[in-house]
């Protein structure tokens, strides 16, 4: 007690220990902050069916638009439903175990795959995202950097076209959003950009996106 208070009284020059503790703390915190915490925040989930895009595109020669297209009424058909898969997969067309499982579990039981598929960019209920308006045609007027629609889609979406098994779905334990879900600041990157308004009507008004 006594000597410490002596030591304190001048209270001007630093004690002997130097910057050691500071650095230790700094490094430790950086490690935790950058890697540990983000890691424990995420929960990994598996898709109900290990869908193989490559097979469908290359072997079956399908185009993206056959499954992912904008409907007459302007709404977006993001995922094919069991029925449209069954068009080809009523019976097994390959030896794939996953295909067999799909036919047994979904086609035969009439279970809707669309309701179980984990959407990487899933937006919460209060968001209305219009695929119709975010089209290459409209954006290409100014944004000449995109050649293909696929390229364009990959701005927001994972490039799954070249995957033989679906990427792992990572869900934030706190917000329950997928890591790939665009957050409002990312939307605002364009929407809050005054340059867009007038040419695209992409205002940043609440009711442009929220419902």
């Amino acid at each position, binding site marked *: 007690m006594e000597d410490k208070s002596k030591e304190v009284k001048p209270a001007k020059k*630093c*004690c002997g*220990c130097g*910057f*050691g*503790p*500071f*650095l*230790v*703390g*700094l*490094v*430790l*915190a*950086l490690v*935790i*902050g*950058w890697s540990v*915490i*983000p890691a424990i*925040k995420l929960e990994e989930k598996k898709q109900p069916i290990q869908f193989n895009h490559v097979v469908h595109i290359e072997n079956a020669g399908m185009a993206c638009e056959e499954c992912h297209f904008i409907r007459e009424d302007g*709404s977006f058909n993001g995922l094919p*439903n069991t029925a449209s898969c069954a068009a080809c997969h009523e019976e097994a067309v390959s030896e794939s175990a996953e295909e067999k499982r799909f036919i047994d579990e979904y086609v035969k039981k009439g279970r*809707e795959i*669309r*309701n179980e598929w984990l959407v990487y960019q899933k937006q*919460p*209920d*209060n968001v209305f995202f219009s695929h119709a308006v975010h089209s290459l045609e409209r954006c290409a007027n100014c944004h000449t950097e995109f050649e293909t629609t696929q390229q364009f889609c990959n701005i927001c979406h994972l490039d799954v076209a070249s995957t033989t098994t679906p990427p792992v779905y990572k869900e*934030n334990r*706190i*917000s*329950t*959003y997928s890591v790939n879900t665009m*957050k409002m600041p990312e939307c605002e990157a364009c929407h809050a950009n005054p340059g867009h308004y007038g040419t695209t009507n992409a205002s940043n008004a609440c009711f442009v996106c929220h419902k």
Partner: protein
Amino acid sequence: MQRRGFLKFALGGTVGLAASPAIWTTLYDLAYWTQNWGWIPRLQNGEDLSVATVSKLDGTPLKVRVVDGRVINTSGNKDNAYSAGGLTPLAASEAQLLYAESRIKRPLKRGPDGGYAYTSWEDAESILKKKTRNAQGSLAFLTSDSSSSLNDIFSAFTAENGSRDFFFMPSDEQAAAVAWNTVGGSGSLGYDIANSDCILAVGANFMDSWGTVAHNRAVFKETHPTGENAEQAIYYAGAMQNNTAVVADTWLPVKPGTEEIFLGAVLSELIKNNIMADSSLSALASRYSIEEAGKACGTDTEQMKKLVSALKNANRPLVFAGTTEGQSLGSTVHMLAIAINAVLGRINQDGGMVALPEREPLLPSAQRYSDIFARNFVAYSMQIANGMANAPKLLFINDANPVYALSKDAQVKECLAKIDYTVCFAAHWNETCAECDLVLPAAHGLERFDDVYTPYGSGNINWTLAKPVTAPRYQARPVGELILALADELGLSLGVNDIPSLLEMRANALHADFKEYLESGDTYQEAFHDFSVPTLNFMPLHSKQAKAPLSEIALHTYINSAAGNPSTGIPPYANRAITEYQLQDGLCVAQMNKATAQKLGLADKQKAVLETKNGSMPVLVRFYEGVMPDVVAVMAGLGHTGFDRFSVNKGNNILEITQIDMEAGSDLPVWLSAVNVVKG
């Protein structure tokens, strides 16, 4: 470790964390977490369809939105010319009624202890089979929806079992049919509201609860273009400024029970104003006078004179009578209404009163409506209850709730008690189910094939198909199919194998394309063509003794069409549509004007007790100058004990204590109650 060392360590840590995204991203995650509460239902996307059908509650053509197989909501069918896309409040709640808690999930059997227990369909069917066999010849059938072609199956089934006791719930339709029959009219009575340019509706709340409401209002929409002049004048005569009165050009107050005197006065005034009429009618008219009516009905004589000249000068006037809650006033008022149309030369004219060809039974043993309407359930029930008639061994009740809808006078409970075995087909658990031995889950209107054929109030032959937009939920089954199956079991051949083919028979009878109408949900309409003027005989009216008007205060019951009907209970969303003037603090509101209240010594917003010959109930007094003097208006449709949380604990059932008298001659029930309200 020294304090300062630790402080430095902590400082370093803080700086480090601040320099990492952990804190900031976590804050955002928290923000998102606070925006999506886990226990609030999430939305489900899916295939989004719009299916056309028709509401079996009130015949409103519908577009039903179905997402991923779930029924989301109902809206009017814009492609349907008959309703012009209009939607009634009741039809708007179809989706909620489909999923309501009050849906009966499985067959229920009443045990010896009076309690109900779930049972299997196999068991239920074997019971039905056994009971029907044993009942041989002593079977009765009660249903409420007269517009359905399925009635042919039910009446045929009844007949094939050697009985003719097939009944509809009492209604304006029945009273009018009897009246039309009595004056020698043929076919069924129709009202060409669409083409009339001047309408007098006596009692009939045709903009909300009488007749083909959706169509009537589509006509109003067309004849009253916003911002332009109306092409149709509407005169409404009734006890209260109700939904029809507020949009009518003139409201003529008429005290309940004096509709006959009012119509008689109109008739006599018309004849005074040298409208040609045969001697029999002139003689009849001489019984009435405007002055007398002014006293008895409480109507302003000047207004009546204006009305009469309006009818006289109109090109296509139309007069009809009815009630606000679709019950019965007896046949006399209808005969007088017919008489007025007759002297105006409006029978079988465009925009007049028309004799529609009576519907031909589709099945050999099905009964004619004219015969069915000749029997009325109230009389039947009373006789059985009083032992004046033998109780049937077996009673089927389909989609009807007499225990709730009919007053103590009808003695329905006593009647049911006397019947050996009672079976109730219902989609929702109602008050009548609770009195029956076997309760069977019936398919809801959106779960079955059915149709709406020329409902009462139509001005032409019209027909709309109902189709299932979703599979029956729980263990519910369409009653039509059930009866057909039962008939099959019993080895009876009704002449049709399933409902669609019955409906197809209807289509063929009308020369309409079944598939097309099934698909489009459109309404088949047949323009009225038989303009031959029938010769009518109004002598029966002479024999009638004019009913003496009530000296006391009269009860006026009305319904809020949003608040459901006796078979649906109060739909979930309707609670918000029931106003403070109808239900407040759990009490039915008794509306009356200040003069009446002063007579009774009551103050506004005061708790009181309403008394009739049949009993009493607590009410809350609210002043409303839109109710005529000496009348107390109370909303019917409250005070349910069946159904679900949205129906119970809401006021009392006024219908229970209303008074029913039998009309001399026709023996039809007449609703008319003297009422007293005392401080409670």
